[in-house]
């Protein structure tokens, strides 16, 4: 038996070596001279339709145009610093543990140069420390948790080019107050998980600070993806609020608006949907005119009238046959931020700088984007500082098109807490240092 084993040992060793090489194959393929980016977004599950698919389309539009050197100035250099971009798509569905595994795969097997992704706050929080451990430049394009840089006070490799959720709600509260609406009582309906709880916490604190004496009419917390909101709509109707606040997104938001409209919930009161813009073209007149909607920043229907922004809208429309919504803009913004950082770090075109050089130039960077100028001016230069805008939904039955009216924008310094202060502390203190026009 022992003799037999000795005889087959070389074959086993050879097989093991062959297996090791075959497993390592993707790593070899990574050395193809391209700038490889792992793009992680929801490709299945409830968040795929409203967020994942538009953001992936945004990535495809931007990467194709960059590789063809067709993006307007200041991004005329092909790909990233003259190097073609290669994208590896990863589905964000499946939970935080799976995403950590996928992140390690991207970094260690696929040998990506950077990772851009993550819609879910849970995934961002799980992946961020791993990005630091693996020293992988990682751009979080959408997740909104304000805990991201509160828990990681000294980030090196993690950046977020989107805004955090507190800004959505501070902006929404300011918009309601500034538009002179009656706000004696506010009803809340949020998805029953961290996003919903945090959003309502920030909004209710901000509105009470701006309009002292506001009463909470009712707080409804249905399950995520519940789909049926009959009882919640009745409870809100019975509580007779002046304003209804919701951070609903995706199918839940569309179902709530459809069911609420059919029951006249929005006839005599204002509703504010912080993520409402993502369904602007999907409401198709089923949302009431006057519904206050936001885009989590100056994106989508709130994007500025610039050459770069208009080009992106047209390029996206040509590819996807619909207007881009805010997740598409945010993805495009993350890619442009990374490109700007790499090109700033590189000594000459055609060179891919070391990861350490990329993150050093990303820190505190100011770059042009599809939403105007972005300054990485919070969390020690790792978090974008931008303004936010809100407006009212308007549907034109003749053209079948929806637009936003009565738009009011707030600068980043007006709605963002200073570094070192949490949103809740800043709101509680009465927004000290806020610079609002």
């Amino acid at each position, binding site marked *: 038996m022992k003799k037999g084993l000795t005889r087959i040992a070389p074959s086993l060793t050879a097989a093991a070596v062959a297996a090791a090489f075959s497993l390592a194959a993707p790593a070899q393929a990574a050395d193809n001279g391209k700038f490889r980016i792992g793009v992680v977004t929801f490709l299945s599950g*409830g968040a795929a339709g409203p967020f994942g698919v538009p953001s992936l389309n945004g990535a495809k539009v931007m990467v194709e145009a960059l590789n063809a050197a067709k993006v307007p100035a200041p991004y005329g250099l092909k790909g990233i610093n003259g190097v073609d971009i290669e994208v590896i798509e990863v589905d964000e569905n499946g939970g935080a543990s799976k995403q950590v595994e996928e992140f390690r795969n991207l970094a260690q097997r696929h040998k990506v140069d950077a990772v851009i992704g993550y819609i879910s706050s849970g995934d961002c929080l799980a992946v961020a420390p791993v990005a630091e451990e693996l020293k992988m430049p990682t751009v979080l394009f959408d997740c909104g948790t304000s805990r991201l840089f509160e828990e990681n006070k000294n980030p090196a490799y993690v950046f977020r080019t989107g805004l955090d959720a507190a800004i959505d709600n501070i902006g929404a509260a300011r918009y309601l107050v500034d538009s002179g609406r009656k706000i004696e009582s506010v009803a809340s309906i949020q998805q029953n998980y961290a996003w919903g709880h945090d959003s309502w916490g920030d909004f209710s604190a901000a509105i009470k600070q701006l309009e002292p004496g506001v009463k909470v009419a009712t707080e409804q917390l249905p399950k995520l993806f519940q*789909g*049926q909101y*009959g*009882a919640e709509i009745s409870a809100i109707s019975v509580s007779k609020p002046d304003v209804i606040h919701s951070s609903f997104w995706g*199918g839940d938001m569309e179902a709530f608006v*459809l069911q609420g409209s059919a029951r006249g919930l929005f006839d005599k009161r204002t509703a504010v949907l912080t993520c409402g813009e993502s369904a602007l073209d*999907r409401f198709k007149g089923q949302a009431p005119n006057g519904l206050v909607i936001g885009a989590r920043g100056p994106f989508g229907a709130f994007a500025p009238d610039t050459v770069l922004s208009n080009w992106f809208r047209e390029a996206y429309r040509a590819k996807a046959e619909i207007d881009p919504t805010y997740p598409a803009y945010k993805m495009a913004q993350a890619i442009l931020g990374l490109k700007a950082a790499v090109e700033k770090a590189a000594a000459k075109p055609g060179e891919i700088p070391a990861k350490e050089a990329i993150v050093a130039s990303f820190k505190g960077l100011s770059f042009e984007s599809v939403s105007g100028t972005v300054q990485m001016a919070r969390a020690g230069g790792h978090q974008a500082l931008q303004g936010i805008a809100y407006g009212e939904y308007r549907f034109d039955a003749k053209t079948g098109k929806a637009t936003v009216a009565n738009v009011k924008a707030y600068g980043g310094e007006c709605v963002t807490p200073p570094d070192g202060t949490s949103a809740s502390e800043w709101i509680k203190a009465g927004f000290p240092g806020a610079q609002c026009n």
Partner: protein
Amino acid sequence: MTTLYAILIDGMIYASWLFLVAAGLTVIYGVMRILNMAHGSFYAIGAYTGAALVGWYFAGGDGAPYWSYVLLLVAALGSGLLVGWLVEQGLLQFMYKRDELLMVIITYALLLILEDTTKLIFGVDPYFTYQPYSLLGRSDIGGLTFANYDLLLILVSVLIGAGCWLILNRTHTGKVLRAVIQDREIAVAMGVNVKLMFALTFVVGTTLGTLAGALTAPAISVSPGIGVEVIVLAFAVVVVGGLGSIEGAIVGALLVGLTRSVAVHLAPEVELFVIYGVMSLVLAVRPQGLFGRNLARKI
């Protein structure tokens, strides 16, 4: 007083929806003793087919809007009969003598396959087919406004509940089915075509699932994952009522629907737990569910 009205009507509307979702599940378990995990997928298939067909109809231009209700029924019946027949003939008929627990695993595998198949056919973009929901207008009841479509669902679920009960209890086919439930081997010995009865039951159960999905589609945004969401609720209802009992499903749906409505109106913070709270309480008192029967073990 308004809150009381609201609790009752909201509870009834939700209960009617729960019953629609759970009816097919309980019919299949009642006759075939299969705890059909794939039922949520049948619901999703009905919703997608209904939404796609109605969406296509309205995209076509100026068709009479009321035909959309016929299309929803056509979508439910067409997809239910086709998928039910394919699954029963292509998979389940080879598995009937297996253990009940294994059937749970088989139908769970089926759920995963059908989830991906649905994504492959309909994509991951949500379907928003609202026309049939808003077409019927609204009614004011006790100071609150309700969508007539939701009120109509109460009527539909009453009709389906009554239909299932009558077929099982007052027709020859129902008596044969009950004989199969009582003792499959003796039923075969007496000349009952059990294979046919099983196929018929499974297709009816599947079609009830697709009907629930198609009728729900106009009120929601139909997106991936809706099947998995409803299967948990459907199980809660049939477990509370007693697996396999139509009367149980009706009472279970009413109990869960009304309790949830009370929670939403009076204590929204506990709403997430009430369904499981009701289930735990019922099972603590009657482990076989409210209308479940203890099965005599064959020796």
